[in-house]
């Protein structure tokens, strides 16, 4: 440009666009955070629309699915593995692996779960979904932690996986085996992160929520409507500690997917004091006696509640914890994640907490309004970025 000659606006705009493209390209490919942002940008639409969009299919890797069964002293562990079919690229040195601890009522062919797994695999991440007999039978089992530990150790030696980039994605009741595994001395120093979607913190407190049909949010007691799923799950989980008659009565009172009429006085009379207390907590018919009912539980029941609670091992977990929870969740109250976050804050443990309206418990809501997308989309984007940053 000669002296005195003015640059044309079109030329300046083109130069600015080129400079921006250069910076953006470098950021999205050379900087680890940028690579995580790139992955999140492709994953977010896939998760919100519950299907892989065309850009992800075009840009992403082809996916290979394998099924494997591990033998453990506690029974078989069924693994559904979704991984990129291409070799791992040299940068950043091995793939990230996500162990998906799905929790009770795990349905292996759930379209949203398959979409989630495939979407991550298209983005170069190995995803393993864990299923155990207890999970399939709607039972929360502390012994399933062994399944998570075994899977973690398997992934450490999986071709192409960087053993330092293995994290846990936990859905609902998967928090019990996942937190116990993350606290296990065999792997606790190597777990990259724990992302928890709609998990609980304290099962005894969850029983209190059920007993009072309320939750405490920021010091205010709010009514809470409970779905039948937590009632059914807790009834089945505790049934091993009951007599066959008690187990049949309580499990019959809390079926999955519907609300049966309360037990009659004659039926209640056949329950031991501990079983009766447990029944009233689930039924929520004695909100004023919740403390008394909790105290009346048998020592075995109380020990089980402690064993199933992440609260009991929180001090032994090393990995950062990302909590996500639907604000109006009817299966696990949002207050559980608030309590979880409060405990992590007191321990100065790295964590994040985000409340959503975009999910119905753990499944993506359909027909979301624009306001909801705008309000929850960025939070979900940040959450995905944190999850994929470990291996980006």
């Amino acid at each position, binding site marked *: 440009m000669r002296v005195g000659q003015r640059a044309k606006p079109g030329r300046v705009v083109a130069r600015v666009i080129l400079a921006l493209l250069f910076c*953006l*390209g470098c950021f999205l490919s050379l900087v680890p955070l940028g690579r995580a942002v790139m992955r999140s940008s492709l994953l977010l639409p896939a998760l919100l629309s519950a299907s892989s969009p065309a850009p992800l299919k075009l840009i992403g890797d082809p996916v290979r699915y394998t099924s494997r069964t591990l033998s453990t002293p506690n029974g078989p562990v069924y693994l559904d593995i979704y991984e990129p079919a291409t070799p791992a690229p040299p940068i950043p040195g091995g793939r990230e692996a996500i162990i998906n601890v799905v929790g009770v009522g795990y349905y292996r062919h759930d379209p949203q779960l398959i979409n989630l797994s495939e979407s991550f695999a298209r983005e170069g991440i190995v995803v393993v979904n864990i299923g155990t007999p207890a999970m399939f039978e709607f039972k929360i089992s502390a012994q399933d932690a062994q399944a998570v530990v075994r899977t973690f150790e398997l992934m450490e030696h999986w071709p192409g996986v960087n053993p330092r980039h293995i994290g846990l994605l936990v859905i609902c009741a998967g928090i019990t085996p996942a937190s116990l595994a993350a606290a296990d001395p065999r792997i606790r120093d190597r777990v990259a992160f724990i992302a928890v979607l709609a998990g609980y913190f304290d099962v005894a407190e969850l029983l209190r929520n059920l007993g009072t049909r309320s939750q405490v949010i920021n010091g205010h007691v709010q009514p809470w409507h409970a779905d039948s799923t937590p009632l059914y799950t807790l009834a089945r989980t505790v049934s091993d500690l009951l007599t066959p008659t008690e187990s049949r009565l309580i499990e019959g009172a809390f079926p999955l997917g519907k609300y049966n009429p309360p037990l009659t006085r004659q039926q209640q009379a056949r329950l031991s004091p501990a079983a009766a207390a447990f029944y009233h907590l689930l039924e929520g018919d004695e909100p004023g006696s919740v403390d008394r009912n909790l105290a009346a539980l048998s020592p075995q029941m109380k020990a089980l509640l402690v064993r199933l609670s992440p609260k009991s091992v929180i001090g032994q977990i090393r990995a950062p914890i990302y909590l996500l929870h639907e604000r109006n969740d009817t299966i696990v109250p949002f207050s559980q994640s608030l309590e979880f976050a409060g405990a992590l804050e007191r321990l100065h443990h790295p964590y994040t907490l985000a409340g959503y309206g975009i999910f119905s418990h753990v499944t993506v809501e359909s027909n979301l309004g624009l306001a909801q997308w705008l309000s929850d989309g960025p939070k979900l984007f940040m959450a995905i970025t944190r999850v994929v940053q470990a291996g980006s």
Partner: protein
Amino acid sequence: MLPLMLSLCWLGLGMLIGALANAAKLRPAAWARRGWMVVLGIGALVALLGGWLGAALLGLTFAWPTAVWCAVLGVALLPRLIAWWGARRRAYRRPRPI
């Protein structure tokens, strides 16, 4: 099929960046005639190379941003480098006074 499609996409992307470089008048003044086509070609070629380099080093997802920044770098630097090199060669071949 996929490699061919990706290659075509990156060639197209590179040509777009080449067009932007033409609009930004990044080509040397000596390239008056058909210089714009050379810039388009440089953009396409460097984007293609960048795309495959990105796919090989970082994975398919990051091939796209790699193709973008390589193409921008290519259209910004290569024309000047080629022009400078051409001028240097001409100067070298010119008979020197004894």
